[in-house]
């Protein structure tokens, strides 16, 4: 069933109400305090004024997020395959994966900067660390949750290990993988911005949104700071949108989640 036009309009109406409240709060503040919450049109103006700097910073953050995200997909995929091989391997490695997840990135960042220097590589590594855990946990779960009867079918047919992984376990794990991928896609730009905040620099014009945040904040450029936040948010939408599109491309023909109203 298609959503009604009114339902489609709901987010727009909510946005209009939100903007109205924003303006109301802005004008309720004293003149001296108004810089704390710039007007939406002032933020738009900041977008225009800082478009060259913000554009370049957004691209740099996107590149850092993308490289960390892709590295996390590749390495978590390999790790998940390894973890799916045996409960003993999982028991041996899971505590250390948990450690990786539990260690605050804020503490790791200075160590990484000392190891690999400030800049793109450190941003990529920090993004990778943030994206890795949800991907490896979900993909492993998918690989070990294959329907027992299907595994028996492959065993009975004397399928090779390679056939079982390629033709059965990997496709069967796709929905789980995408659950992790969607989480990682929301985290990737955040990871890149946080990484950039700690490890970014503008050498060679490579500063990202995190680095730009430090600059704008030191200059008390509140509209530009808000514009930076919205640019980061837009980047998140692009990442998640790309994942949702890929998920639809690969799953919509057969996965039940796309066909709940069919039955």
């Amino acid at each position, binding site marked *: 069933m298609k959503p009604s036009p009114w339902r489609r309009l709901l987010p727009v109406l909510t946005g209009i109400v939100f903007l109205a409240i924003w303006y109301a709060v802005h004008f309720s503040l004293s003149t001296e305090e108004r810089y704390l919450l710039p007007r939406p049109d002032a933020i738009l103006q900041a977008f225009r004024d800082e478009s060259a700097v913000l554009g370049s910073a957004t691209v740099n953050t996107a590149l850092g997020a993308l490289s960390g995200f892709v590295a996390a997909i590749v390495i978590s995929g390999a790790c998940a395959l390894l973890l799916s091989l045996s409960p003993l391997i999982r028991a041996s490695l899971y505590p250390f994966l948990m450690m990786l997840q539990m260690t605050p990135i804020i503490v790791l960042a200075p160590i990484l900067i000392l190891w690999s220097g400030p800049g793109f590589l450190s941003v990529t590594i920090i993004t990778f660390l943030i994206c890795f855990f949800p991907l490896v946990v979900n993909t492993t779960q998918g690989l070990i949750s294959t329907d027992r*009867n*299907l595994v028996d079918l492959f065993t*009975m047919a004397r399928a090779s290990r390679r056939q079982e992984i390629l*033709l059965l376990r990997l*496709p069967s794990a796709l929905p789980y993988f995408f659950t992790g991928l969607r989480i990682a896609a929301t985290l990737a730009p955040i990871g890149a911005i946080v990484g950039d905040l700690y490890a970014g620099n503008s050498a060679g014009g490579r500063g990202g949104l995190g680095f730009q945040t430090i600059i704008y904040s030191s200059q008390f450029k509140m509209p530009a700071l808000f514009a930076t936040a919205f640019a980061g948010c837009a980047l998140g939408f692009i990442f998640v949108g790309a994942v949702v599109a890929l998920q639809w491309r690969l799953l919509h023909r057969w*996965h039940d989640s796309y066909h709940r109203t069919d039955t």
Partner: protein
Amino acid sequence: MSSPPPIVTFQRASKRYGDGLLIIDDLTLTAQPGDFISLIGPSGCGKSTLLKLISGLSTLSSGSLHINGLAPEQAARELAYVFQEPTLLPWLTVGKNVELLMRLDGSTPSERAAIRDRVLSLVRLDGLADRYPRQLSGGQKMRVSIARALSRSPRILLLDEPFGALDEMTRDHLNEELLAIREQEAWTAFFVTHSVAEAVFLSNRIVIMAAGPGRIHEEIRVDFPYPRTAETRQSPAYQQLVARVSRVLRSVEEVCV
């Protein structure tokens, strides 16, 4: 005239799980080529375990099992298994699902296509090769599962309650279709079921098993000639045999409770 050598032979076979639980105890059973053997009995009597032993998915703890003179692990090419659920790969089309076992065996695409079309026609699913399993009814899914099993041209077909989840009318239709297919494909069948009527309709031998541990309680021969049709179910002889098997089964279940 001497009878042909048995295609499946269990000799004093026992199966014990890792925790020591005895599932099958001292079972001896032979199947002749062309037999349609239904295994019926209370839950836990080892019916499905017998199929798993024949298929090589499980191994005997003691005794012996030979399939066409071979150990089960050497006889994989002789067998095909139809599970209780259709067990289709949801991301593959009907055609690709039917081709799956041939693909695992290393057949070429052209070989696969020819056999796929033939077996889909056998199960009356021509024209549905490009559909996905989610687009099929329960009965159609089970037909695809049977077509996939037949694609290997097996000498032995193992069916583990394949129609148990279907409504009675669909089940009756599929029973008739299964026998019609068997007229064209001469396989030996081991058929696990909880339905006495189904067992009597399909089989030439009904093996009634008892539980705790699993063993053969009684074997009943079904001598109605093939082909059997919907009319077979109306005959007094059929209904008397259903009543007789039910009585034996009830006595087995009472002992087990």
